[in-house]
């Protein structure tokens, strides 16, 4: 899947050399950024306000600024909604940028942490942590989630044939399916061996943001931030990689450096997101496609816009999760799957360039 096949580049701008785009921004990308930030701000407020108990905007502001509000409202805002909103923002940005990196690195429009089994790797490692080591606090299994994500990324890359240089999008997805199947089978057996953990594991596996304390988010957030800082400058290298390995090497881009840094960033982003929220699929698939709609093929802008669009989608899914079965709520991972699966089907139906 090269850029020439029209998959990574919008059909409207054929023939623009992505590396030669020396532009800093276009009206379209600026619009996406500004609009995105405004929407993100509004959604954050909505996420704090909406829930089984609605909270007015004035109450929110006075609770945050330390004004006079009832203890219940203060707890709802500062103790529950703000941590949850923060978690959604961190997870959304992490998943979206991980997805954008994977799609660009593997030249695969279907790549994302959930479909390619990276999240399943995290889930497996967390199951091991819970069942094997008796670790039940999210703070304890963060490192397991990261390690699981790393091994799964490497395994899928090897099975999917990335080492041979020729990447088949379908094969990568199927490698992810195979890996997820094996790991979920083993998790199932572990679960039968120790039914007491059945409940805890099942809730985590569905992907949930409710009840995530600030401590987990704050522990993972610096790692995610670091990975995002590593990821953003990779855009230039990825643009060049899209031209093909030989040309990229000829242009003086270190293939190895770009690849290794990308894989490291993907691991931390996907593993960190899974540690906070459990495996959440499809955010990483949808957001980069939306970002490319505004940014074209330039990975620098795709990564930046994904970083803003990811939290938007995640917050929307999380708010929907609270509204669909109000006053109860659905795990956000299920909402994202219900939104994302139709998008996958649409992508398949629309794109001939997928070379399926």
């Amino acid at each position: 899947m090269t850029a020439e096949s029209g998959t990574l580049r919008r059909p409207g701008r054929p023939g623009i050399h992505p590396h030669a785009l020396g532009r800093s921004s276009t009206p379209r990308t600026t619009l996406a950024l500004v609009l995105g930030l405004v929407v993100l701000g509004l959604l954050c407020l909505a996420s704090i306000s909406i829930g089984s108990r609605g909270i007015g905007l004035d109450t929110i502001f006075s609770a945050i600024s330390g004004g006079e509000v009832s203890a219940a409202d203060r707890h709802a805002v500062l103790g529950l909604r703000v941590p949850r909103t923060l978690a959604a923002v961190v997870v959304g940005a992490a998943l979206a940028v991980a997805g954008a990196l994977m799609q660009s690195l593997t030249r695969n429009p279907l790549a994302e942490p959930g479909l390619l089994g990276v999240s399943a790797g995290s889930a497996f490692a967390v199951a091991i942590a819970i069942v094997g080591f008796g670790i039940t606090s999210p703070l304890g299994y963060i490192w397991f989630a990261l390690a699981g994500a790393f091994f799964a990324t490497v395994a899928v890359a090897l099975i999917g044939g990335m080492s041979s240089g020729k990447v088949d999008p379908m094969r990568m997805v199927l490698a992810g399916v195979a890996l997820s199947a094996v790991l979920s089978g083993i998790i199932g057996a572990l679960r039968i061996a120790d039914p007491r953990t059945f409940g805890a594991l099942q809730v985590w596996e569905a992907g949930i943001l409710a009840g995530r304390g600030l401590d987990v988010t704050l522990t993972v957030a610096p790692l995610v931030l670091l990975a995002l800082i590593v990821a953003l400058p990779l855009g230039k290298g990825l643009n060049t990689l899209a031209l093909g390995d030989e040309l990229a090497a000829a242009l003086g881009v270190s293939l190895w450096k770009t690849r290794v840094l990308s894989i490291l960033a993907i691991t931390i982003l996907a593993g960190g997101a899974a540690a906070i929220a459990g495996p959440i699929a499809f955010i990483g698939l949808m957001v980069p496609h939306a970002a490319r709609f505004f940014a074209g093929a330039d990975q620098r802008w795709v990564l930046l816009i994904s970083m803003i669009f990811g939290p938007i989608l995640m917050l929307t899914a999380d708010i929907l999760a609270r509204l669909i079965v109000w006053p109860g709520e659905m795990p956000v991972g299920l909402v994202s799957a219900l939104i994302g699966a139709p998008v996958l089907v649409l992508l398949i139906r629309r794109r001939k360039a997928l070379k399926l």
Partner: protein
Amino acid sequence: MTATLRPEPRSSAAPAPRARRRFRRTRRPVRSWLVGLGLCLGIAVLGIIALGLGDYPLNPAEVLTALAGGGGFDSTVVLEWRLPRITAALVFGTALALSGALFQTLTRNPLGSPDIIGFSTGAYTGVLLATVGIGGVTVADGLIGTSVGALIGGLGTALLVYFLAYRDGVQGFRLIVVGIGVTAALHAVNSWILLRAQTETAMGAAIWGAGSLGLTSWSAVLPAIAIVIAVLPLLLISVRPLRQLELGDDVAASHGVRVEPTRLAILGIGVLLTALVTAATGPIAFVALAAPQIARLLARSPGIPLVNSALMGALVLLGSDIIAQQALAQPIPVGMVTVVLGGGYLAALLAYQARKG
């Protein structure tokens, strides 16, 4: 060995058509007979071993005596307690493998199988809706709820995937990826129903969802087997159009096969076979995917051999059930074993193809 991932018209007529064409069937090569014989032998050996395993172990000689009906308590253990389960494994393995063989031949793709297309997850959704329900409203409970739910859920999902993937005909890869998408959505629905359900109900449904051969008595096994066997004549009718479709849609059409209706009908038979097994046991993944391909690799046949696939399916499911019963301290559902084995097989297949380029 044209096990590529790309759907390509298989040149199964590669050995130039010889003068024997009069009889419209080529002679089955010796190798394929040998593989079939070996598989039968393997099934017999594994079957005798399985009949002897359990809390009351028997050696092969005792098993054979008991089978002949001469051993009092031994006979009760073997014939009444263990034989039903092993018969179920053999028949259901056969049905799953045949279903997979039909799917793979139609999609001309080693990955086309009912489990990848989302059938099992859909059947699970049907069962959950019927037995657990939403908001405490259940349609039907027990065996009837499970069977009806699995059939309707599975068939509905198969139809949905087929029509979502339909665009000037159904192309193998689109079918598979649409199946992955639909599976993901249904998986979300399933988790949601399970999370909302009472813990005991959820545990019960989750155990069904893992796929188990736990039907222990003849009275539970025989009806399921009878229905599966009743479907087999349909399969015989479909062999000839199937082989013509295998040559490519255009060739089949020029031979007078009505391509899309025939394809839909054969898919229907495949779905029916899996649905019957799923209703009886819960989803048992990957037997349908792996067995036909392993049989084909062993026999080195150009197309997917139906008889050898069936034998291989029986062998795989029996072997998996033995592992499920014996490998860990407590028995686990056979579906978990096949998921691990089959996922590993799929990974190996992909890695092999990737290396080959």
